[in-house]
């Protein structure tokens, strides 16, 4: 302000002559540093978890994954119980959530008038906003007793001859865990499906209808064909979420040390077992075995996510060409 033409932001003449502006260099520098930090962070997570799990990896080898044991007294550990619990609960959740999510997405894009679709879409989104610990609280105090007194006896009366539905109904077990997971993945899968369906070229749909298809036939023949890879990615992302959920599952699954074929009986999952051990381990080997469970969980979720991303990237590239 004191002298005319003075600009405090002006770079020094020497640097400017060389075409370098200090502010630009600094700013780009910290932006690069932040990006490097984010990448290093991912590497550090993998390194830290694997190195903490290393004593157990050396002790049990890969056989840990298919060994059914969790015995602090004998100091002998294996992951099979938890891998089984994780896979079974997640697959049941997927089986229930996928058709529901697709149907919700179709309702929102094809059936509901806009004034109805918008609030319902918001409500489905809000379902995703419920913290998992609150869903778990509801699961253990409301869903669990209902499952034990109503759902499981009812299932048993029809399907009791299948081992999955045998045994004593109980309020904690794989079935309520699968139901809680279903609620958690519906918003994820349905949101992605909805976007896919909304992006299906309208002229293709109109063409199918003009040829005499019913709405459902056009959806099945055109929309599903167009969106199939995207739906697969949506399902995988939901699966990744289900695999990784620890808290809500921990609250409702019951925490068993061995595999029980019945869906009604208490079981345990990878994330849930890790969460259950937060107050400490009785031995170094147990602590490292818990980290081994974490490493398995990490590998499963990384693989699921990378495959889903790859599908999405390929999908976007091929659809842009259209």
């Amino acid at each position, binding site marked *: 302000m004191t002298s005319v033409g003075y600009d405090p*932001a002006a770079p020094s003449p020497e640097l400017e002559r060389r075409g370098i*502006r200090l*502010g*630009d260099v600094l*700013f*780009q520098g910290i932006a*690069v540093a*932040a*990006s490097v*930090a*984010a*990448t290093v962070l*991912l590497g*550090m*997570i993998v390194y*830290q*978890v694997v*190195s903490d799990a290393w004593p157990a990896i050396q002790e049990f080898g890969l056989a840990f994954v298919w060994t059914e044991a969790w015995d602090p007294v004998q100091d002998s550990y294996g992951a099979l119980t938890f891998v089984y619990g994780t896979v079974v609960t997640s697959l049941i959740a997927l089986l229930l959530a996928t058709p*529901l999510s697709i*149907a*919700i997405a*179709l*309702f929102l894009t*094809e*059936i509901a008038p806009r004034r109805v679709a918008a609030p*319902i879409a*918001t409500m*489905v989104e809000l*379902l995703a*906003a*419920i*913290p*998992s*610990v*609150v*869903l778990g*609280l*509801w699961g253990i*105090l409301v869903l669990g007793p209902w499952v034990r007194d109503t759902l499981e006896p009812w299932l048993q009366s029809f399907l009791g001859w299948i081992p999955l539905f045998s045994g004593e109904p109980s309020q904690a077990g794989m079935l309520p865990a699968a139901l809680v997971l279903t*609620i958690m993945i519906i*918003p994820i899968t349905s949101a992605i499906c909805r976007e896919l369906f909304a992006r299906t070229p309208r002229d293709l749909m109109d063409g199918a209808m003009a040829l*005499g298809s*019913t*709405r459902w036939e056009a*959806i099945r023949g055109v929309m599903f064909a167009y969106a199939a890879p995207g739906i697969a990615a949506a399902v995988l992302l939901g699966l990744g979420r289900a695999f*990784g959920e*620890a*808290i809500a599952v921990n*609250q409702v699954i019951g925490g068993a040390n061995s595999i029980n074929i019945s869906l009604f009986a208490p079981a345990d999952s990878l*994330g849930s077992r*890790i*969460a259950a051990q*937060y107050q400490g381990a009785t031995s170094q080997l147990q602590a490292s075995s818990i*980290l081994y469970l974490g490493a398995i*969980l*990490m590998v499963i*979720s*990384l693989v699921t*996510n*990378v495959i889903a991303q790859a599908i999405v990237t390929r999908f976007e590239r091929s659809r842009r060409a259209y």
Partner: protein
Amino acid sequence: MTTIPGDDRYDITIRSAGLRRRRITEKAFAGLAVASALIAVGILALVLGTVIHKGLSQLSLDFFTKARPLFGESGGIADALVGSVLIVGMAMLMAIPVSILVAIFMSEYAGPRLSVALRIVLDVLNGVPAIVVGIFVFGLLVVGRGQSAIFGAFSLAVLMLPMVARATQEVLEIVPRSLREASLALGVTRWRTTVSVVLPTAIGGILTGVVIAVARVAGETAPLLFTSSIAANAISTDVTHALPTLPVAIFAFSESADPAEQAMGWAAALVLILFVLVLNIVAKLVASRQRRKSEGA
């Protein structure tokens, strides 16, 4: 599908084979889709309804101002509220600047290849389960030093980073090229263009991303179990020690067999859910205002 009622002789499809079956399929499809949407809305209503019904009667001034009781006395969750606010606040301070810088690098500096690579890194980071982040921070920082609210905040920041960075990057991408060019053409340096032209244009979208990320980590329990869970039930602001938090308190209440503690759990859940829902609604409002503004521009 629309036909003039009572004038079916002009509808040629009426004579096509299997039309009855096709119409039934169509009706069944529509019915199932409506039913599915109702199920989702019903579940939301059921969970929210239960939390409100069981939690509301517990809320009182004491609930917000007193720490948790030790043995059976009456008390509140003030200690957990204070802890949650401090930890989430610190997580925001750690995550937001870095996230925005990463997003700026992706949209303003990196070439398309590098940008895609970083996008994949962020998406994979976003897919790392919260419990794994918990044991990561446990192994990295807590072992040997003990739990602390700062470590808890760091674990939440790790979860926030990819969410905020991706949301920011997406809004930065849609800031029109012409705005940047106009600013650069006026002789403004690149970094000043980014800070005073690009970021203000995108501020609504960035805020939406931040608010949604905060809502998500405020309810996160798993990372805090390993980093800030073993704490006294007393109001404290010492962030170098473990602090009690709302999600961890709800987790502990839910495992209790005591109906009085379960009731406290419902009330704490109501407070948490209200906070999260309000944040989500705020995010929606900000997003729609931003959309209207950019449509008007």
